[in-house]
C-alpha cells in the first residue's frame, strides 16, 4: 500500500430525477433508496462513495447490475456529473474543471474501454487505434505509428486495414484496449470491458491485461459483475450494492473476512482453492517449525499446494520469498480456509438447513 493515491473519490452522491439537488437533504437525513423512489420518485444512484485509487494498481469495482458501478466509473472522467461530492485526480478536483480542462483530462490523463467496444464503425482498425492521438491534434503519422504499435502489442498485427465490423468480439475489444493504450494515459477506465466476451476469450483478455499491466503499471479502474474476474484482476476490490460501498480492501482479505451477509452470499460459490493464496493463510513466523516437508511460494494458490501435498492434511510447508522464510503453511489451516464463511458459521448453517 505504498503507492500514492492517484484518484480519490470523496463523499460522492448521485441522484437521478428532475430535482436531484433538493433530494440531497433527504438523503443526508438518512433516507434510503426505496423510500426516496417511493416518496419523491428520484433514484438514488450512488450514496457516500469513498474510494482511493492508487497508482499502478488495478482497482476493481464489483457489483451486480443496478449497483451503480457503471455510474461510478463515469464520474471519474465526468461523463456523468455527481450531485454532491469530490473527485480528485492528481490532487485536483475534477468537478471544478471547465470544458477545456475537462477535454484535456479526457485526452491525456484518462482513457476508457467500453463493454460494447464502442469503436467507430466507419473507420479502419488502425485509425480507431490511433484515434486518441488524432483527437489531441497530433499528426496522422504519429497516430498511425502509435496505433500500429499497440495493435501489434495486443496481437492484431495484420488487421489495421480492416473495419471493426469485420472482427470478432474479442478482437474488437483488443482494438478497444489498443485505442486506450495508444493515448498513453496514466489512468485506464475499463467498464465491464470483458463482460460481452465468451468465457475462453475472456480469460485470454484477462491474461493479456495482467501481462500488459506487469509491463506498463497503469492505474486501472476495472468494473465487473463477475466475482472470479474481480478476484483474478484486483489489487484493490470495492464491492458495491445499491449504490453504496459494502466492503473494500485486498481481495484475499475480503474472502477471508467478509463483513456483510451480502458479501458472504456472494463469495459462497467461488472456488476458494484457486483464488486464495498461500500468503493470506500462512502463519507469519521465522521459526523453523517441525515436520516441514517442503517449500512453497507465498503467491501460489491453494489448489497447487493441495496438488503438491497429495491431499495429506498433516503436512507443513515453509513459505519462501526471495530465498528467505517468511512463514509456515499448515495444511490444516489450508483446509479450514477452503470452507466458505457461511458453512463455517454454525448459526448460518442452521438457518440455511431449515
Amino acid at each position, binding site marked *: 500500500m505504498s503507492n500514492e493515491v492517484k484518484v480519490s473519490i470523496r463523499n460522492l452522491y448521485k441522484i437521478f430525477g428532475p430535482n436531484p439537488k433538493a433530494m440531497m437533504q433527504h438523503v443526508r437525513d438518512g433516507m434510503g433508496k426505496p423510500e426516496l423512489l417511493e416518496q419523491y420518485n428520484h433514484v438514488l444512484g450512488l450514496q457516500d462513495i469513498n474510494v482511493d485509487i492508487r497508482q499502478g494498481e488495478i482497482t476493481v469495482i464489483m457489483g451486480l447490475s443496478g449497483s451503480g458501478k457503471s455510474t461510478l466509473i463515469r464520474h471519474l472522467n465526468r*461523463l456523468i456529473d455527481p450531485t454532491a461530492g469530490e473527485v480528485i485526480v492528481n490532487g485536483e478536483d475534477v468537478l471544478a474543471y471547465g470544458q477545456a480542462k475537462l477535454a484535456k483530462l479526457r*485526452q491525456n490523463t484518462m482513457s476508457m474501454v467500453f463493454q460494447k467496444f*464502442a*469503436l*467507430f464503425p466507419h473507420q479502419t482498425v488502425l485509425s480507431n487505434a490511433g484515434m*486518441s492521438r488524432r*483527437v489531441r491534434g497530433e499528426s496522422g503519422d504519429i497516430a498511425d505509428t502509435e496505433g500500429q504499435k499497440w495493435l501489434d502489442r495486443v496481437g492484431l498485427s495484420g488487421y489495421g486495414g480492416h473495419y471493426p465490423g469485420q472482427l470478432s468480439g474479442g478482437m474488437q475489444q483488443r482494438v478497444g484496449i489498443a485505442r486506450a493504450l495508444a493515448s498513453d494515459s496514466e489512468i485506464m477506465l475499463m467498464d465491464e470491458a470483458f463482460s460481452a466476451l465468451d468465457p475462453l476469450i475472456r480469460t485470454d483478455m484477462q491474461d493479456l491485461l495482467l501481462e500488459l499491466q506487469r509491463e506498463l503499471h497503469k492505474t486501472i479502474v476495472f468494473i465487473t459483475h463477475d466475482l472470479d474476474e474481480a478476484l483474478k484482476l484486483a489489487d484493490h476490490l470495492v464491492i458495491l450494492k445499491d449504490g453504496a460501498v459494502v466492503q473494500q480492501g485486498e481481495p484475499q482479505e475480503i474472502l477471508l473476512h467478509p463483513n456483510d451477509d451480502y458479501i458472504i452470499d456472494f463469495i459462497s460459490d467461488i472456488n476458494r482453492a484457486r483464488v486464495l493464496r498461500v500468503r493470506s493463510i500462512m502463519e507469519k513466523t521465522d521459526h523453523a517449525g517441525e515436520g516441514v516437508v517442503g517449500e512453497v511460494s507465498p503467491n501460489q494458490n491453494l489448489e497447487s499446494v493441495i496438488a503438491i501435498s497429495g491431499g495429506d492434511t498433516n503436512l507443513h510447508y515453509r513459505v519462501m520469498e526471495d530465498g528467505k522464510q517468511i512463514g509456515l503453511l499448515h495444511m490444516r489451516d489450508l483446509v479450514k480456509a477452503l470452507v466458505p464463511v457461511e458453512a463455517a458459521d454454525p448459526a448460518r448453517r442452521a438457518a440455511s438447513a431449515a
Partner: protein
Amino acid sequence: MATYDGLIEALGLGDWCGGGKTDGPMTMAELMARANNGGGAAAAEGASGPSTPLMQTPFPSLDALNKSCAAIPRSRDMTEAVEQGFLNIKDPLKVVLDPVTQPLSWMLDWALVGFQAVPWFIMIPALIAITWFATKKLGVTALVAFSFIFMAFIDYYDDAIKTLSIIFVCTVIAVLLGVPIGIAMSRSNVLQRMIIPILDMLQTLPTFVYLVPLIFLFSVTESKLYGIAIILYAIVPVIRLTDLGIRLVDKDVIEAADAFGMSSRQKLWGVQVPLALPNIMAGINQTIMMSLAMVVIASLVSAPGLGVKVLAGIRNLELGVGLVAGFCIVLLAVLLDRSTKAALGRIDTSAR
C-alpha cells in the same frame, strides 16, 4: 327576425350591434339564394322569416349571428380581411424576400440555359458517365443510357433536360439548406420541437396551396416562384432524415467520443455526420423524388419541362402528348431513384 335576436337582447348587446342593420356586401349564401330565386331581396327576407323550425336552427356562425347583429362580421368579411392583411404585408415582405430569393431565379435560369446549351451528344454521354462513376452498376447505367436515348429519339429530350435542370438546382439548394437545419435540429430538442410542426405542415399542405401565397408575392413569370414551391415541398425529407440519422447514431460510440475528449465539432464531423450518412443520403433521395413530383405541378406557374407537355395534353385534350410526357416523367423518376439508391448503397457498404 333572425334566430339569435333573442340571445343578443339577453346579453344586452343591442346598442353595440346597431339594431341589426346590414350595409356591407352580401354573404355568399345570400348571393346564391338570390341567383337561384331570381326574386331579389324579398325572397331572401322570406327565407329568414319570423319562425325558424327547431330542426333548422343554424349554428351560431358569423353569418347567422350577423343577421341579428350587424357589428359581427360575416364570413366573407373575414376572408376579405385575410386577403387584405396579406396584401398589406406583401409590399414590406417583398422588399425583404425579393433580393434574398433573386439568386434562385438566376440559378434556375442559368441552369436551364446551361443544360440546354450543352449539345445532346455531350450531355447524354456525360450523364451516363456520371451515373457509372456514382453507382458502378452496369444495370443502372444502362437504364440511364436507354432512357435518355429513348427520350431524345421521341423528341422529348429538351423537356426532360429542362425538368432535370430544375430538379438539379432545387435539390442542391434543398440539401444545402436542409442538412444544416437537420443538424441543428438534432442538437437541440427545443429547435426540434419548433421545426417539426413546420415540417408537418409543409408535408401535409396540398401541393397547390403552396402556390397561392407565392403568386401573391412574386410575378408568375419569375422562375423563383416555382423554385421556392419545389424547395419548400422537397426539403422536408432531407431535414427529417438528417435529424433522425444523427439522433440514431449509437449512444455508445458517442460516449466513446466524449470519453476521449472530442470537441463537439470533432464529434459532429468525425462521428455523427459520417455515421448518419446513409440516412442523410436516403433523405436526399426522397428530396429528389419530391422535387420531381412538384416540378410537374409547378408547370401551372410557368415551370418549363415535361410538366408543360402534360398540362398541354390536358388542356387541349391531346391524350397522346399527355401520356407520353407522363411516361417520360416516370422514366426520369425511376432512373433518378435507382441511381441515387445505388450510390447510397456504395456509401453504406464502405461505412459498414
